[in-house]
């Protein structure tokens, strides 16, 4: 049973870590918009615009 003396604080610490991470994420605005980010996932990553005069090599 004495293993609990280590496991209990570790478990509570992990829980506290999770809560802390969630609060940080919420305050950082991660949960403000839940509709647009799923749409961004379908975009291709063609961030360089294809040039009209000379086609990309």
């Amino acid at each position, binding site marked *: 049973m004495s293993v609990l003396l280590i496991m209990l604080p570790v478990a509570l610490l992990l829980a506290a870590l999770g809560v802390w991470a969630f609060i940080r994420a*919420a*305050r950082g605005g991660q*949960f403000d918009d839940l509709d*647009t980010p799923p749409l*961004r996932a379908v*975009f*291709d990553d063609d961030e360089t*615009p294809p040039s009209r005069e000379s086609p990309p090599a």
Partner: protein
Amino acid sequence: MSSLAANQTDTTSPGREQTFCTHCDLPVPSGLIESDADHQFCCAGCRTVYGVLYAGGLEGYYRVRDATDAQRERPTVTGNKYDELDDPAFQAAAVTTDEGGASTELLLENVHCAACVWLIERLPRVVPGVSESRVNIRTRIARVRYDAASTKLSQVARALDSLGYPAHPARGQAARDARTREDRTYLIRVAVAGAIAGNIMLLAVALYGGQIASIDPLWESVFRWISMALGILSLAWPGRTFFRGAIGALRTRTAHLDLPIALALAVGGIWGTINTVRGTGEVYFDSLAILVFLLLVGRWVQHRQQRSAADQVGLMLTLTPTSATLVDEGGSTKSVPIESLVAGSTAMVAPGQAIPADGVVTLGDSDIDESLLTGESRPVAVGVGSPVAAGSINTTSMIHVRVQAVGEHTRVGRLMRLVAQASENKPPIVRLTDQIAGRFVQVVIALAIVTTVVWTIRADAETALGHAAALLIITCPCALGLATPMAMSVALGRAARNNALVKSAAALEALSKPGHLILDKTGTITNAKTTVARYAGPDELPMLAAALEQHACHPFARAITDAFPEAPSPGHTTHVPGRGVRGTVNGCECAVGSPEFIAGLASDDQLASLARACNDARAEALTPVAVWGEGIGVGVFAIGDTVRTDSAHAIEQLKRLGWSVTIASGDDGSVVDRVAQQVGVDHALARQSPEDKAALVSRLVNESDRPVVMVGDGVNDAGALAAATVGVAVHGGAEASLEAADIYLNDPGVAPLVGLVRLASHTKRTIKLCLAVSLSYNALAATLAMLGRIDALTAAVLMPISSLVVVALAMRPPRSSRSR
């Protein structure tokens, strides 16, 4: 436009391939097909947007759109210049500048799919000075970051416009930020309460298991101490909101559901702590933590639902125009934000625009539609020297207005003060659960005292206190506290799907009991626009009239062109201010306008029939508009505000549900009486000023214990909307009425109100059912507790089960067949 396209499609022979627009993929009207071009466009908007996309290398838009199967829509390109966005006063208020550049929020129209998001977020490729653009598809607000030194905000807005997304400055940023912060606080509370509840449960399993399989007393005490620490954390952090609510209720001496909840939490917390320190007796921290978590989940769900309704109304406010056209001494014009107008300056108002400030006409003649301001359905003729009021609409021709009063000194501004006053004096709606909570606390405390006394006599004080504490904890009305928000958010969601935005759950609850219904006439019972009620005369003339009126903005002209949309294009036309239009259509000399104007053109034998038709129209409180065609004769349109086809039926249904209906209108007695008669309403009040309406509503609210519901659309109704128990603004209403109302119906007319009232009474029945179940559970629990048969394990099982049962009941759908 769309009916034109449909016609063209019909005439296409079945064998021929239809041509689709390169940009929007919708059919191209055959008249616009260019046989030798690679790309076909259905309208100028599509051509513009395609040009911008191609020039910016943004053809990826079509790939994203096709991949996401988005609905096809024709883009709107307004071609506005957006100069008002560059005004220093506006920039100071709406643009924030930091080392990364300037950034601002713009509300965009027509954002509806993933491809729109893709395109808007690639704005930096279209406007080089823009470094970032992020849009939220739900709120349609784009946050744009740009380099203020090289790029003007008007350039950014013009670029968005040319892509088919007309931009508006997103007003109320401070309020939006505050709401976002509130949302985050709610979410964090739920998360923390959930994490604590989960961890306490783990410890509770060990403790309950230990009761059966004997646990080492040392470990038992360790677990109990940790439970206590977590439990107190839960009460003090996320649970604090209940104590705050209870203290607030005590201070204002009102009953509130937070009161019994806070009582149970406090007693549980104190008793659990005492027992933990003593090392014997029950600790209830697991039950308390679950309680806090479940209650917060319920409130969060309801908050989200209410919030999204409030958001949508707020966004509609942003769409109202905010700019005015200023004329300087030299006669050149500049568009500026409304806020920078001052008394003494001159503003130009084009036909179809709203007048930005109170003032006097200095140039031009026109007709002003004051219906939103006064309820008067007929436009008022103005000329040089006539006073005009902010918020009314200029209809016929361009005028110049010398500004006399701006902002809160205008007629609209004074009406807004009336709104503020009325909402302060309005008594809050007493909600069913709060009403019950008051009684509940008294009963539970009485039972606790009886328990203590009886058990002190039968056993000892310690046992007595234990049983009393158990009673107070287990009778916590958590099922009720969870059921009401759940039932309400289900109802609010259903209302929103039916285009009714309900800003507060209390308003919906108040609608469940029939009371006084006060209806505005113009735009509520009648169509918002004037329409042609009848026409008398030769059949060829209406087409000629519609052709002549095609480019006029006067409501009567619009009524005629709406009634006869397939009119040919006119030849030469001359506008005769204040009288009518004269010109040629298909070579035929013709004219349309006031009866006096036409009488001057008609032959003597036509005058008698003209006069008779005009008198017929006036007898019904309709306005005659005459039309004349060379060699054809004269005809008369009877124009006025016509009753919506569904109004009479809807009012009949509301009356059958027990509502007493009154019409209060700013319009003339003859018009109001005719409408009242048509829809079967006995009480009709005409010539009501905004103040009269507000006073009428306030008087009813004070005199009657039944709810007073005001339905209206105009600025003139705003005071009454704010004073009423429930204010309902209808589709197409003015900004002021949106702000003052509790409910906004996004469909025109009274008919949606019937569905809403039904939904409200269904919801009320659901809540009462939940209440009955939850109170019988509480009675059972209280009996067990008074007999001393409740321990922490029973409480931990009973409490969540009762909550789940009640939540399942709260979600029940309305019976599919409408209930009588």
